[in-house]
C-alpha cells in the first residue's frame, strides 16, 4: 500500500456518507467498532485481518463522528428555543467572528454563554447568527448582551440550502437586532488575542486596498488577496459563475504559495538558516490562513503547504496525494459535516482532478515532444483547465444547474491574468504598508488588469453557447 493515509481517508469519508444515508443507532455501531478493535488487537498479526479491521474501523469511526456531529449537547441554545417561538430572549456571549456589513445588515456570530427568558437565566453553549439592521463598531471578542427574538434561519422557497449551510457550521438560530436599545456592550474582551490581531490586520489591509483603488477593483482585489468577497457586486459574481471562473475570487493554494515564497525569500535575504526559515514560513502561513477567514480552500492550501514544508524540513519527498488527504482529514475531523459543503467538494475535487488527470492527458497528447515553449505552455494551461473542468463538471451541474462550455477557454485566458493581478495585489498591499508613494504607482497597472479581466469575462459569456442552464 503506497498511500495508506489516502485509503484510510476514503473509508472515513464513506463512513460519513453512510451516516447520512442510514439510521443505525450510534451505540450499536460503537459496539461493532469495539469488537473489531478487539479482533485486530488479538489476531492483528495476520495481515488480512489487520487490513480489513483497520479499514472497517476507519469506516465506522467516520460513521460515528458524523452521527456525533449532529447530536447537540444538553446546554446547546437550540434546546432552549422551541419551533415558532415568539418569546423575548436575553443572550449573553462574545462575538466569535469578525462582524461584516453585507446587504445593508451587520452580520456576526455570537458564541452564547447565558440565555434568559421570563426572568430565568440558564448557562448555555452554541452559536447564534446575529443580523443587525444598523451599523455599529463591533469587533471579534467583544462581550455583548443582546435582547430579541430567536428564530430559525430563513429558507428560500423550497430550497433549504441556506439553512443547511448554516447547520453545517453549527448554527441553528438567528436573532434580528433592529434597535440600538437591544444591544448592551460589556467592557471585557473574551477572545484569542492572535485571532483578534489577524482580524484587525485584515481590516487594515482592506483599508490599504481601498485607499489606492476605486470600489469595484478594490472589492475584486480584496477577494483575491484577502478572501473577502462581501463587496463583490452581484453582476460580477454572476458573470464569473457563468464563465466558470468564479474560483479566482477566492484565496486558494496559489495565494498561499505566493505568501510562502515571498516570506521564504525575505528570510533568505536576511541570511536565516534553513530550519528557521521553514518554521517562520509555516507560522506566517497560519497567520495568513486566519487573516483570510480560514475558509475551506484556505485551510486545504495551508495544510498542504505545511505538509510540504514539513517534508522539506525532514528531508523527505513530499507527496501531493498524502498532503491533500491530510488537509481533507484535518477539516473533516473538526467538522465532518463539511463533506457535504459545496465549497469543500469543489476545492478538493478540482485539485484532485488536476493532480490525477493532468499527467495522463499530458502523456496522451505527447506534450513532451512539443519543441515550441509558447505552444507547450499554452497546451499545458489548456490541459490544467480541462482537468479541473472535467473533475468539477458533475458537481457544478448538480448544484448550480449550469453547464459552462466556455469554462476551458475562459480559464486559459483569465487564470494567467488573475495570477498577475494577485501578484500585483500582494505588491500593492506590501508597498501600501511600507512605502505608500510607490503603492500609487502600482495601483494603476493593477486597476488596468482588473478592468481587462472584467471586460474579457463579460465578452466571453456573450459568446454563443457559452453556458446553458439545466
Amino acid at each position, binding site marked *: 500500500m503506497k498511500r495508506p493515509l489516502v485509503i484510510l481517508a476514503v473509508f472515513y469519508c464513506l463512513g460519513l456518507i453512510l451516516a447520512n444515508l442510514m439510521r443505525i443507532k450510534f451505540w450499536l455501531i460503537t459496539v461493532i467498532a469495539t469488537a473489531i478493535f478487539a479482533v485486530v488487537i488479538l489476531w492483528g498479526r495476520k495481515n488480512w485481518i489487520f487490513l480489513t479491521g483497520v479499514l472497517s474501523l476507519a469506516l465506522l469511526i467516520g460513521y460515528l463522528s458524523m452521527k456525533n456531529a449532529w447530536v447537540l449537547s444538553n446546554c446547546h441554545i437550540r434546546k432552549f428555543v422551541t419551533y415558532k417561538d415568539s418569546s423575548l430572549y436575553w443572550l449573553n456571549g462574545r462575538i466569535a467572528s469578525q462582524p461584516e456589513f453585507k*446587504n*445593508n445588515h451587520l452580520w456576526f456570530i455570537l458564541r452564547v454563554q447565558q440565555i434568559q427568558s421570563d426572568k430565568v437565566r440558564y448557562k448555555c453553549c452554541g452559536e447564534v447568527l446575529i443580523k443587525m439592521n444598523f451599523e455599529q463598531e463591533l469587533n471579534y471578542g467583544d462581550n455583548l448582551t443582546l435582547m430579541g427574538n430567536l428564530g430559525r434561519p430563513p429558507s428560500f422557497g423550497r430550497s433549504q440550502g441556506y439553512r443547511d449551510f448554516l447547520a453545517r457550521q453549527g448554527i441553528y438560530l438567528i436573532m434580528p437586532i433592529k434597535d440600538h436599545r437591544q444591544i448592551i456592550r460589556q467592557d471585557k474582551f473574551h477572545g484569542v488575542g492572535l485571532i483578534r490581531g489577524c482580524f484587525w490586520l485584515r481590516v487594515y489591509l482592506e483599508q490599504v486596498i481601498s485607499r489606492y483603488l*476605486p470600489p*469595484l*477593483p478594490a472589492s475584486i482585489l480584496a477577494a483575491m488577496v484577502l478572501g473577502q468577497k462581501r463587496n463583490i*457586486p*452581484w*453582476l*460580477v459574481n*454572476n458573470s464569473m459563475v457563468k464563465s466558470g471562473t468564479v474560483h479566482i475570487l477566492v484565496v486558494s493554494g496559489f495565494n498561499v504559495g505566493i505568501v510562502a*515564497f515571498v516570506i521564504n*525569500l525575505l528570510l*533568505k*535575504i536576511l541570511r536565516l538558516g534553513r530550519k528557521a526559515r521553514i518554521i517562520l514560513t509555516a507560522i506566517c502561513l497560519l497567520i495568513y490562513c486566519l487573516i483570510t477567514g480560514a475558509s475551506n480552500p484556505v485551510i486545504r492550501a495551508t495544510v498542504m503547504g505545511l505538509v510540504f514544508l514539513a517534508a522539506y524540513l525532514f528531508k523527505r519527498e513530499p507527496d501531493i496525494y498524502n498532503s491533500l488527504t491530510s488537509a481533507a482529514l484535518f477539516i473533516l475531523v473538526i467538522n465532518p459535516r463539511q463533506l457535504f459543503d459545496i465549497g469543500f467538494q469543489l476545492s478538493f475535487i478540482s485539485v484532485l482532478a488536476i493532480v490525477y488527470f493532468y499527467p495522463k492527458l499530458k502523456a496522451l497528447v505527447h506534450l513532451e515532444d512539443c519543441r515550441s515553449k509558447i505552444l507547450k505552455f499554452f497546451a499545458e494551461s489548456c490541459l490544467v483547465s480541462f482537468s479541473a473542468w472535467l473533475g468539477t463538471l458533475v458537481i457544478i451541474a448538480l448544484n448550480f444547474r449550469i453547464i459552462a462550455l466556455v469554462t476551458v477557454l475562459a480559464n486559459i485566458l483569465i487564470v494567467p491574468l488573475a495570477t498577475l493581478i494577485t*501578484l*500585483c495585489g500582494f*505588491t500593492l498591499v506590501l508597498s501600501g504598508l511600507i512605502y505608500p508613494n*510607490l503603492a*500609487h*504607482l*502600482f*495601483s*494603476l*497597472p493593477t*486597476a*488596468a488588469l*482588473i*478592468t481587462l479581466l*472584467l*471586460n474579457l469575462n*463579460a465578452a466571453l459569456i456573450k459568446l454563443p453557447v457559452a453556458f446553458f442552464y439545466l
Partner: protein
Amino acid sequence: MLNFTPEERKITLFLLGLALCGLVLNNLVKVNCRIERMVYPPVQLAKLNLNKVNLAELVATKCVSVKLAQRILEYRDLRKEFSSLEELKEVKGIGEQRYGKLKELFFIE
C-alpha cells in the same frame, strides 16, 4: 556586482516592470482623460442599467419576484424611463429595505 539568485532576479524584474507600467499609465491618465476610463472598470460591468434591463434579468437578481419585476417595468414604460434610482420607491412593493438592496444592483444612465 548584482549577485542575485534567480528568484531575486525575477522579483526585481517584476517590480521594475510594474513600476514602469505604473509610470506610463500615470502619465497617460494625466495627458488623456479617456485613458482613465480604460484603466478603471466602468459601472456597466458591476451594475445593470435600470432603463435597459428586461424581465428575465430583473428576476435573475433574485431580489424581486416576477410580479414586482413586471410592476417595475410597467412603471418604467409609463414614465418612459427612470430619472433616478429613488423613483424605485414609488413602485408598489418596494420599501426602504428592498430599495437598499436594489440600489446596489442597478444604475441609471
